[in-house]
């Protein structure tokens, strides 16, 4: 009993930390609609800054002042980032800001290592709160008690801010209806910067207060960002009180989950999120996403089949790919094979998010299921390669059927988060089911058949499968089904009014996209000869998103080009320098600012500008 109470208090203490981070993320999203992937990086930066400041400033004042000063300093950096970078891309397609903040995350991760080194840093204990108090005969750290109080205190302060100050009322108004607030003559730019700074301040403070509790290290950002997203979604995006309730829920779930279900403790959080989203599609205290007003004049260019120029370009690329083995050694072919696989993966993700309007934060699930499908077939049934290529995608197909059925019940960011939840559930199943999946050690010995085992042969096999796969996806995009999928994305209201069943159509789109991703996963397993839980993990999903957005979400060829650029760049930069995150992150940020329509979107714009008749002319497309 006493032990349980202590565990309960532990849960509350971690809930407070989570709340600081999640509330910041939620406020930023509520007003600016930015899915701030860099929030975890700012949290980490807050911890590092606090470490340095508290090392230099002595005494109680130095410690507490150091924590606050760290959070303020990081908030200023955040505000600068908003002014310099994000302001330029608010008009870019949805989620483009996510890509920018992902680039920023990479940069911060590398900078942190350059400045503070790669070792874990142990911070100072809090002056005056070093001891512990006796609770039911058990020692409980005083600092944790302080944290328990801190969460509700910050909640109270935020409530006062949002209800008793003019600025706070404006923030709440903007959360409900940005356009109305702008129409009332409020300086939106300043409001956004302020909100972003406040959100970053909270996140950085969340990181700063960690230093007496745990070592500061350079992977803190990814650890926290996923949890923070889960909390924001469970609570309801934009709702601070919802974030608080969800923090307590997740804090306690973590505290007791490890006791009750040690086997599935990692996945518990995602299971709870999945259940809550299915019951309450907008989180505990969230509201339905108000229908974004389609502003007139911000039209999208209709996607078109390739013209002659485009078709020639595709042929030229195919020709180069065909004769590549003449020039390249086996290393180049290995890289090229991997790029091809990810081109198929990105194209499948684009079918889902670009055409179907279903953003996936968990597309790795189907890639990984394909890879594990083939590894399991090899391990348990000793299926030869031809059989593996045909049968293994079935596992990805099945996963997409099952997960997709739930996901299409939601829309927007909530759908995206549910895809993430399912991907994490799939990940923890393969991670923890040692007997079948080999757990952390993965499954080895997935080699291609002898006829495909040379780099050249496997390269050509991959080229054939991926080229056909990408062409099939293109064909689907321009087929009646592709149009139907796009109609559900464009206007659910109109689609419903002309006899289209959105959920059924999106489910089918989801399944198709998952299956194509699975085919990519199968090839990847044969390429590497092994599968690991990493194949199903968040970084793979993020890679996919980056490729699609980089190439251009409003074009069909974009994702393939994006995959080529991103994968080739990252493989090249990683092999050439140890600052690869810094360089890649900077490149992503530059690309985002330079090509807000994606690389291919930019190229198409350039091409069409020379041909002003296109899209404007009175004729129908031929």
């Amino acid at each position, binding site marked *: 009993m006493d032990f349980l109470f202590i565990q309960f208090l532990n849960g509350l203490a971690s809930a407070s930390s989570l709340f600081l981070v999640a509330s910041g993320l939620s406020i930023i999203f509520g007003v600016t609609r930015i899915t701030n992937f860099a929030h975890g990086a700012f949290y980490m930066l807050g911890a590092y800054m606090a470490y340095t400041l508290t090392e230099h400033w002595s005494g109680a004042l130095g410690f507490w002042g150091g924590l606050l000063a760290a959070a303020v300093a990081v908030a200023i950096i955040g505000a600068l980032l908003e002014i310099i970078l994000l302001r330029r891309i608010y008009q870019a397609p949805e989620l483009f800001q996510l890509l920018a903040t992902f680039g920023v995350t990479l940069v911060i991760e590398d900078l942190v290592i350059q400045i503070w080194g790669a070792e874990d840093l142990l911070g100072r204990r809090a002056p005056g709160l070093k001891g512990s108090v006796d609770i039911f005969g058990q020692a409980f750290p005083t600092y944790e008690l302080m944290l328990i109080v801190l969460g509700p205190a910050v909640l109270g302060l935020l409530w006062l801010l949002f209800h008793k100050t003019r600025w706070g009322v404006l923030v709440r108004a903007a959360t409900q209806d940005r356009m109305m607030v702008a129409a009332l003559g409020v300086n939106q730019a300043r409001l956004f910067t302020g909100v972003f700074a406040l959100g970053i301040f909270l996140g950085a403070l969340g990181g700063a207060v960690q230093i007496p509790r745990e070592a500061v290290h350079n992977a803190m950002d990814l650890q926290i960002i996923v949890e923070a997203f889960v909390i924001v979604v469970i609570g309801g995006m934009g709702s601070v009180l919802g974030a608080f309730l969800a923090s307590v829920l997740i804090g306690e779930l973590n505290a007791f989950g490890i006791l009750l279900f040690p086997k599935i403790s990692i996945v518990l959080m995602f299971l709870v999120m999945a259940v809550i989203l299915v019951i309450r599609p907008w989180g505990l205290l969230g509201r339905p996403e108000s229908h974004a007003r389609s502003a007139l004049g911000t039209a999208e260019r209709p996607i078109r089949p390739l013209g002659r120029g485009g078709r020639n370009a595709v042929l030229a690329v195919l020709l180069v790919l065909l004769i590549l083995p003449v020039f390249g050694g086996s290393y180049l072919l290995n890289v090229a094979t991997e790029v091809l696989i990810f081109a198929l993966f990105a194209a499948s993700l684009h079918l889902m998010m670009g055409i179907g309007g279903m953003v996936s934060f968990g597309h790795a699930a189907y890639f990984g299921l394909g890879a594990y499908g083939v590894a399991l077939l090899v391990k348990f049934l000793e299926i030869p390669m031809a059989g593996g290529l045909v049968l293994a995608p079935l596992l990805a197909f099945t996963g997409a059927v099952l997960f997709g059925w739930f996901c299409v019940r939601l829309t927007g960011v909530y759908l995206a988060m549910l895809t993430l939840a399912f991907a994490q559930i799939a990940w923890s199943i393969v991670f923890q089911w040692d007997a079948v999946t080999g757990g952390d050690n993965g499954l080895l010995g997935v080699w291609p058949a002898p006829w495909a085992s040379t780099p050249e042969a496997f390269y050509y096999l991959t080229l054939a499968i991926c080229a056909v796969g990408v062409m099939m996806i293109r064909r689907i995009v321009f087929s009646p*089904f592709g149009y139907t999928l796009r109609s559900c994305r*464009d206007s659910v209201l109109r689609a419903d009014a*002309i006899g289209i*069943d959105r959920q059924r159509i999106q489910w089918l789109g989801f399944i198709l996209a998952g299956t194509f991703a699975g085919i990519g996963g199968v090839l990847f397993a044969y390429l590497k000869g092994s599968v690991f839980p990493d194949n199903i993990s968040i970084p793979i999903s993020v890679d996919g998103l980056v490729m699609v957005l980089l190439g251009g979400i409003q074009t069909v060829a974009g994702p393939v080009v994006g995959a080529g650029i991103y994968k080739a760049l990252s493989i090249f930069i990683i092999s050439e320098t140890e600052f690869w995150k810094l360089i890649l992150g900077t490149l992503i940020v530059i690309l985002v600012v330079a090509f807000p329509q994606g690389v291919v979107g930019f190229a198409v714009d350039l091409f069409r500008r020379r041909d002003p008749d296109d899209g404007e002319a009175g*004729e129908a497309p031929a």
Partner: protein
Amino acid sequence: MTTAPTSALAVTGLNKAFGGVQAVRDVTFALAPGELLALIGPNGAGKSTCFNMLNGQLPPDEGSIKLYGHEIIGLKPRQVWRLGVGRTFQITATFQSMSVIENVQMALISHHRRLLSMLPFAGALYKDEAFALLDLVSMGAQAGRPCGMLAYGDLKRLELAVALANDPKVLLMDEPTAGMAPKERIELMQLTADIVGQRGISVLFTEHDMDVVFAHAGRVMVLNRGRLIAEGTPAQIRANAEVQAIYLGSGAVYKTDEDTAAGAAP
């Protein structure tokens, strides 16, 4: 069966409340085949709520809606559409990433039940039919333009073409001329009247512009505070004292709950 199955649309005892607000109260009417029936009323009278129940977007609390004798309450909008009820929206809803003609082709693809087909090029399907529909609403010249670049009046025309794609028996038009210039309004309504006249489509439309209503409607119903308060020919409605009080400035629309007819003149 209280209503004759010959009505295109027979609505009986329709009720809908949002929280404590009775948005639509005991609305009963019939739309005769081939008729052009206007539903008018001040802001907040319950016109859009009525409309949204008629095509299945909102479930009514009570009542019956029969399409040629066939009960359609409980059906989803897409099912109501399949039975032959077209719909245009007060704020246009079109597919922004498609060209004008593709919007119409999309509706035709659905009408021909080819939604799941993955082989043909959608852009090549039902092109002649789509052009014919666009020509009907004088949009043929703009077939290739991206839908997002259209002027608002043209979007309204496009919606009409889309709504006609499945050969509807009944057309529900929520404020078909809202947001258009006065001259365009008369043109569009004249166009609509001609088309439905030729095709024998029954139309129920809401409208704020009284010129449009009195010029084109065969019959007019007046909704106020969720209740039908008057019904008749345009001439009768024009002469109705209660309607005049609502529209011509008693200012007492919300003064009393039950009776606005006797509202004091300002």
